[in-house]
């Protein structure tokens, strides 16, 4: 059973490789990509069930005992993210069938897409600091190519910035790894954790912790998000939806992983600092979101707000805070994909990105409109949709940690989300209908499946969190108790 | 004694590389730079050979040939580039 935990990483990878060999067989690629992702989804469900019964799943690659080899560690938190990733990926790839031009498909779109997913999942599952860097690079490279795929002027321009910033942050990531290696002489998360716990998290280690925080902050769009709005708005919808849903989450995941497993000894410094950054992120993101009239910008700044909100849960560093963060993380992946997909369809239908130039779509596209509305409510955290539980428990967590300002800012941020997202709804869907269906620049044919699935999920997650609650609880329990992770990695072996 | 000689040799070589660097920087033509680069490559080979003796290791013998190869390829590439404006020809 342990063996299957590598599948979510390598299945998409293998599929992508096969796609390169099958370059001209687009139909086969389409089918295979869905099949692969469904397989990943099923695997992760199996993993979840298994973890809940038997504890954290690990696999030491090459059978080299920890900490010498690279370990793949699937705790519940990771696995939940893997599952969500696979679902989001399935929806986005289905969406891509109808919306990605043939040219892009022939230029390895599906391969790149699956490489991206493989990188994301790998980042969630790896138990090794340097391997995390490698997976970051996998997903980043794939994202670079996906951003530029198509070669439009604006794509190239924004890709330049995106790539440069990410290279810079990868360099700083390596700096962190170097320091970490100097201090602890090891790379496995679990082993680092053990060694730091043993030696005590002194001032310099805390400094290095903050270095890692800042590195991941760039990736997550936590406070250092400046690169994000531009690059998320240029690729095709299916891609920007995946970006919005997954890429920042990897950074968030890394922050949560490091600050629950390794740097958990000085929360008054590190976690409060995370809280400050989270608050600033929500404020800046919120201000950004309400100021604009372009759909893509509004949605992108919402990604930023989401990041801040999730990390507010980590800043709290209580059981409830992390519970909320986990729920909200899952929710945010789903909902960002959904809202970006719908946003893309709106732009596609109206031929414009500017809200002032569109109106009254609800008459011609009622389902789209109501799904947008539901998505919007979910984004705001209105119950009983998926954002609610996360919102409540993150807020409760911050209160428990006496970070009232953070909790209140989080709630006020959802007001800004409300304003920005309702602006989209009211301008795009309400008002006089400008275009008849024949005059529209595109149609919703074939794209509603993905959107409907995601809408269904956001509703289902909101109404039925009880079904995943045991899993989320297991996840949070492990996050709050690093020893579980460490024991799973080292098994019964001695820790050098 | 021998070690001192090796260090002396290395120092001389370093001076040589610095002089080549001067030419590399100074130009004035790109051909000059390629020339300097080629010479640096050659000097690097010497340097690594000396290090191998000095450190008493075979570990860097591969590097010697490799530098030779790359230096050659690099020189050819740059020279072609200077000559034609492109390095690799599509079709004759």
């Amino acid at each position: 059973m342990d063996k299957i935990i590598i599948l979510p990483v390598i299945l998409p990878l293998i599929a992508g490789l096969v796609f390169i060999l099958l370059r001209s067989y687009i139909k086969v690629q389409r089918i295979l990509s869905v099949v692969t992702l469904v397989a990943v989804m099923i695997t992760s469900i199996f993993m979840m069930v298994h973890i809940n019964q038997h504890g954290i799943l690990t696999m030491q690659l090459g059978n080299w005992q920890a900490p010498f080899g690279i370990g793949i560690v699937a705790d519940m938190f990771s696995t939940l993210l893997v599952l969500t990733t696979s679902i989001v990926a399935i929806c986005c790839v289905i969406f891509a069938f109808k919306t990605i031009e043939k040219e892009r498909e022939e230029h390895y779109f599906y391969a790149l897409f699956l490489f991206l997913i493989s990188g994301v999942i790998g980042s969630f599952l790896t138990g090794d600091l340097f391997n995390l860097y490698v997976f970051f690079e996998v997903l980043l490279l794939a994202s670079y190519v996906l951003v530029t795929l198509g070669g439009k002027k604006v794509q190239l321009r924004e890709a330049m910035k995106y790539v440069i910033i990410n290279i810079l942050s990868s360099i700083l990531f390596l700096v962190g790894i170097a320091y970490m290696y100097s201090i602890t002489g090891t790379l496995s998360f679990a082993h680092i954790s053990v060694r730091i716990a043993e030696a005590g998290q002194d001032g310099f280690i805390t400094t290095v912790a903050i270095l890692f925080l800042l590195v991941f902050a760039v990736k997550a769009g936590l406070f250092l998000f400046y690169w994000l709005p531009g690059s998320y708005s240029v690729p095709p919808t299916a891609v920007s939806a995946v970006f919005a849903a997954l890429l920042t989450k990897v950074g968030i995941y890394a922050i949560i992983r490091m600050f629950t497993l390794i740097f958990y000894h000085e929360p008054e410094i590190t976690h409060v600092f995370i809280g400050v950054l989270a608050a600033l992120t929500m404020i800046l993101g919120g201000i950004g979101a309400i100021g604009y009239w372009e759909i893509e910008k509004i949605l992108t700044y919402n990604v930023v707000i989401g990041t801040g909100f999730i990390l507010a849960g980590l800043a709290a560093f209580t059981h409830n805070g992390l519970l909320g963060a986990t729920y909200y993380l899952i929710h945010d992946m789903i909902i960002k994909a959904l809202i970006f997909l719908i946003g893309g369809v709106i732009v596609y239908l109206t031929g414009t990105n500017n809200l002032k130039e569109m109106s009254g779509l609800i008459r011609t596209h009622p389902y789209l409109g109501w799904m947008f509305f539901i998505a919007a409510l979910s984004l705001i955290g209105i119950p009983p949709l998926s954002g609610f539980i996360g919102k409540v428990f993150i807020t409760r967590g911050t209160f428990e940690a006496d970070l009232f300002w953070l909790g209140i800012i989080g709630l006020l941020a959802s007001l800004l989300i409300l304003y920005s997202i309702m602006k989209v709804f009211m301008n795009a869907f309400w008002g006089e209908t400008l275009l008849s269906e024949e005059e529209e620049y595109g149609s919703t044919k074939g794209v509603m499946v993905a959107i409907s699935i995601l809408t269904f999920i956001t509703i289902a997650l909101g109404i039925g969190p009880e079904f995943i609650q045991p899993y989320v609880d297991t996840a949070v329990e492990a996050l709050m108790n690093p020893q579980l992770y460490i024991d799973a990695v080292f098994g019964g072996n001695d820790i050098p | 004694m021998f070690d001192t000689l090796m260090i002396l040799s290395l120092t001389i070589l370093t001076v040589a590389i610095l002089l080549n660097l001067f030419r590399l920087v100074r130009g004035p033509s790109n051909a000059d730079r390629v020339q300097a680069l080629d010479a640096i490559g050659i000097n690097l080979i010497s340097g690594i050979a000396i290090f191998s003796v000095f450190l008493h290791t075979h570990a860097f013998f591969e590097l010697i040939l490799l530098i030779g190869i790359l230096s050659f390829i690099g020189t050819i590439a740059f020279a072609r580039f200077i000559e034609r404006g492109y390095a690799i020809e599509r079709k004759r």
Partner: protein
Amino acid sequence: MSASAEVIAGIFIFVGTIISLISAIGLVRLPDVYTRSHAGSKSSTLGVLSVLVGTLLYFVISEGYFSIRLILGIVFVFLTAPVAAHVICRAAYRSNVPLTETSAEDQLKDYFEQQSKEVNE
């Protein structure tokens, strides 16, 4: 055994580096790219060959280790250095890098002019 290795290798290596230094000086001092190519290609080639031979002998004598890799390296440098010089000079000439003012004659220029005349006709 080791002492003789050190003596022989030391001589070869030291001479080699001196030659390299001189060729580097040449590279700095000589007036144009063509004259510099003489220093660059030949002197430094000799220098590196001397060092490599010294190294080879050092390991042969001290350890009985006869390195094919080093031999191959020597051969390769020997083979390619003149080509490099040739290609660089040709490129320089074809990209119109002028000869130094003290140059006496330039038959190639005449040849090129004649060739382009033929093409034009």
